[in-house]
């Protein structure tokens, strides 16, 4: 379930904490394991991480379900992380999300049939100055309009 390469990466994180506190590395461990499993977590992979860090499965699941960065459903090659918090909302994010959903033909949380794109509503990404905004990969796209979204999405491969 966890590759040797991932185990090595996790071990590096475990080493940063005092002995017996290996469960402190759970967030990074989940991230590492998610990255090598189609960018999502399942109860099996969460349990595997918990076992590896000698912690209860439910404790790892609590962490995995708390943070937005962990995916529990299949995701596309690109995840569009659309902010819907107050600043973006006041600047029309709700309408833009509907526009994006219509364009892609899927709802938030679903993946396009070609497996390329999924949309996820996320909490504030700290870019209120450029609201409304979303994030793809490591890239922020700000001051979005319907046209701008079409252009960006069309450019995704």
């Amino acid at each position, binding site marked *: 379930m966890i590759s040797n390469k991932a185990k090595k990466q996790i071990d590096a994180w475990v080493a940063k904490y005092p002995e017996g506190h290996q469960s402190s590395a759970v967030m990074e461990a989940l991230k590492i394991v998610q990255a090598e499993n189609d960018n999502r977590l399942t*109860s099996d992979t*969460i*349990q595997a991480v918990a076992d590896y860090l000698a912690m*209860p*499965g*439910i*404790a790892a*699941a*609590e962490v995995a*379900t*708390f943070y937005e960065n962990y995916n529990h459903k299949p995701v596309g090659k690109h995840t569009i992380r659309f902010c819907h918090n107050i600043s973006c909302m006041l600047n029309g994010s709700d309408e833009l999300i509907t526009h994006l959903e219509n364009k892609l033909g899927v709802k938030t949380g679903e993946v396009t049939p070609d497996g390329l794109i999924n949309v996820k509503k996320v909490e504030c990404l700290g870019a209120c100055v450029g609201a409304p905004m979303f994030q793809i990969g490591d890239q922020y796209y700000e001051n979005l309009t319907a046209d701008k979204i079409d252009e960006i999405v069309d450019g995704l491969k």
Partner: protein
Amino acid sequence: MADIEIEIDGNLVNAKAGEILIAVTDREGISVPRFCYHKKLSIAANCRMCLVDVEGAPKPQPACSTPIADGMKIHTQNEKAKASQKAVMEFLLINHPLDCPICDQGGECELQDVAMDYGSDVSRFTEGKRIVADSDIGALIQTDMTRCIHCTRCVRFGAEVAGIMEMGATGRGEDLKIEPFLEEGIQSELSGNMIDVCPVGALTSKPFRYELRSWQMNAVSNVARHDLVGSNIITQTYKGKVKRIVAKDNESINETWISDRDRFSYEGLSHENRLLAPQIKVEGTWKEVEWNVALDFATRGLANNVFNTHQTDKLGALASNTATLEEFHLLQKILRSVGSENIDHRLNVKDLDNAISLESSIKLAGLEGVDHALVIGSNLRLEQPMISHRLRKANLSGASIDVINAMAFDFNYRLNSENIISPNQTAAMLAGVLKSVLQNAQVEIPDYLVDIKVNDVATQLAEKLSQSDNSVIVLGEHIVNNPQAASIANLVSEIAQHTNSTTLNVSATANSMAANMTGFVPGKGGLDVNAMLAADLKAYILLDIYPQYDFHHSLQAVEALSNEDTFVISLNSFKDDAVAQYSDVLLPIASFYETSGSHVNVEGEVQSFAAAVNAPSDTKPAWKVLKVLADLLELPGFHYADSTQVTSEVMHQSHKQHVHGESIDVKVKRGVNVIWQKSPYAVDVLSRHATSLQATNIGQINSASMNKATAKKLEVAQDDEYLGVPVAINEAVANNCVFVNANHSTGVQS
């Protein structure tokens, strides 16, 4: 901690510095509402219901997480406190459904009670309430998670007390849910306590679902007889039936917890298999008769087979370990009055020359104060859940725990060392420990230890025991049928003596301490159970025995008792085919909670209890049946008006029987060793008939575990049958050892 003075609502109160405010108000009887705070759990301070006004603090403070300091002035009832409490209450009720009429918690609900005091009569919340899907978490606990207020008591109970974190808080914000991660359901042997700690109707008792309201039932204090603890319970009854059992606080015995076995076994009381009418066997067929006819038949049978032929030494009495102190006493008194010493309760012991008698020298509450424990031959968690819990507490506060077992069991605390060895090596291992202890103490080594080699493990165990100020040696159930059981007990008592350790003998369970106290063992010239079965006795009186579960030599027992010339009087609470086969009279007796009596726990504490309900139908409490039987036999000294007179008679006599030899055999034995242990929920007849308990994961434990090498030697493979039980290949078992956990009748001959 120094004594300080604080002011609560204008009254001066003495307290210790650093105490938590809510503990002080609870002690003083000042009511502060709360949901997440529980005196036995860690502080979460997440429900915010206990907000009070502390002078000088800008905002109201949660009483459950505010340590007190000298001169503090606290207002629990002023406007600021009341306003905060009301605001929190309104907040908590936003998503709580208004379904009290169909909620099992209704009438005993903390949320309902607090809402009466602090809630508003009209909700200002007009939006939709959230709904949470329930998860099926097993046969014992019913979930209605929409009612959950996220106090996390159940989560903390699992992580802190049960020792397995099973429930957790997943998601966040409005999506936060309390749920288990695994779908197999809750595994803990203490899970029912989650029902008790849940302040709302989110977790309720599944067997009790939709049965009754709490105010409709009578509550009777009682004592659970399934293990050596004698947990205090409250039996809640309605129209002569036990409907539910909840824990009763007793800090020195069970704190506030009880095991699932104690909580849910009552279901067996209404099982269709109950024996409800006296029966006699006439020419091979059973006939239901009146009590006087059955008792007359019984006394005539005894007269014909024993008294008229002057063969009183051919009469035997056997009793199950779950009998009450009074029942043990009366049965042995009948036997001794007519001149027979054939009395025994140790039915599961293979070789009684080898029986253990080791005194326990530690109190239950003392267990959590030990700094070291050596557990020998026990799956403690499932055998004695509350004792295991105490040791876990000791472990959490720093005690190191070593284990010598034949299989690696699932302990819910960190072990210092786990030594998995075959039962054939246990005596030799302990001899090594003793030798090392004696060497360290520079005491002369006795002859039987001269040839013993002390290995590293023995040295380390000896060192731990010698260095610890307060260590305990626990002797568990698996030792009972160890080929060197008596030697092991002797070695343990020697080791304890030389290391200043205490001992805890949990090798025989249920009410076996009461049997010992009343002298329910063969006296001078008497036969033990195995000798009786081999000796062609002419008559038996058997007290609540189910041969295929209770006897070690079950097939021989049934055969011996079925002898045509043997007259068998059986007092039973449940029907059983084998019992019907060998008995001549069946006398239906009251089961748990239907009779008054006493339980003696491992520390020797005698706890008496009254009957919670009347014995159903035509059944009678066994102590009364035995008393009447004695009267009919015209025996003197059986004039008891109630069972407490029997109790006081026992308390005023002293029976001390030393039942095992002094010799010590420390040679390693050869061959494959079988440890046969009943599954945790098959230990007594009541638990075996409790359907919900049987449906749990623990209730379904049924396997003969052995490692690959042993399986090869015995020529069996995974899922084959061995001794009538499916084989489970498991490398956690010591070599040359088979660990059998059976939940059904045994066929064991060895």
